[in-house]
């Protein structure tokens, strides 16, 4: 843990992504929207929610490609997940958790970046409601449900 960037440096730097995207091209910070763009590009299946010009949102797909590349550059080779997730049961739990992340963020209209950082930065009260519910869900899972599952 000795190499961890302290919160008071990491947080403000992350906050700067909000004005950076606005000033670089009027783009709103929000990562989970990319999951929708991936569905629209690869599996639209005639569903109206996926019928839109996803190519206009290529900037955001490039943004997540950047996250992947940036992470690869500085990868610290420290364990990110506990070994318990490499069992078949653990992998099933990861798939289930991912499903909840994808379903929940789209239903809520955003995730930690779109609601908690972008939404709160622009004083949107629905984003405060969403952020409180993210916390409620996380606290319930970690303290009460996860001990029963793992």
């Amino acid at each position, binding site marked *: 843990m000795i190499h961890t960037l302290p919160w008071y440096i990491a*947080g403000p730097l992350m906050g700067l992504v909000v004005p950076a995207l606005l000033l670089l091209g009027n783009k709103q910070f929000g990562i989970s929207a990319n999951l929708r763009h991936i569905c629209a590009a690869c599996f639209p299946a005639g569903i109206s929610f996926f019928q839109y010009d996803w190519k206009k949102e290529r900037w955001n797909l*490039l943004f997540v490609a*950047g996250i*992947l590349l*940036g992470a690869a550059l500085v990868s610290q080779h420290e364990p990110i997940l506990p070994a318990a997730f490499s069992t078949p049961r653990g992998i099933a739990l990861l798939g289930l958790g*991912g499903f909840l*992340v994808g379903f929940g963020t789209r239903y809520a209209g955003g995730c930690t970046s779109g609601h908690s950082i972008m939404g709160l930065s622009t004083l949107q009260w629905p984003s405060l409601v969403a952020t409180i519910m993210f916390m409620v869900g996380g606290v319930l899972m970690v303290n009460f*449900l996860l001990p029963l599952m793992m």
Partner: protein
Amino acid sequence: MMKYLVTGMFFGIILVKAQVVSWFQIQEMFKFQRFHMYGIIGSAVAVGMISVALIKRFNIKTVQGENVIITPKKFHKGQIFGGLIFGLGWGLTGACPGPIFAQIGSGEYIVLVVLAGAIAGTWTYGYFRDKLPH
């Protein structure tokens, strides 16, 4: 377009360097054992808020010379139900959508399962959207 790739790289580097990608870190946050994640999100919001206030106050234009437009977010029940569902998934996997990509970039390839689940979850939401309370 490459400027967005570079901004994403900047974000990804911080996610890794500040250990936001760590499942253990998210567990400690939801158990209220460590201030780190609250400090990160809180100070990110503070800087975002001040930046947006300055952009509005001084009518700062984009690099293309346009006015900055912020689309308001409308309230609907999804922020309650969907927010809760996402929170459960975040607590379980230790990953919100940004860190999913950073974890995969870090070489934790098992997280591809989380990404596949997240895409499937998004698709399922799209499929049932009209039947869900909003």
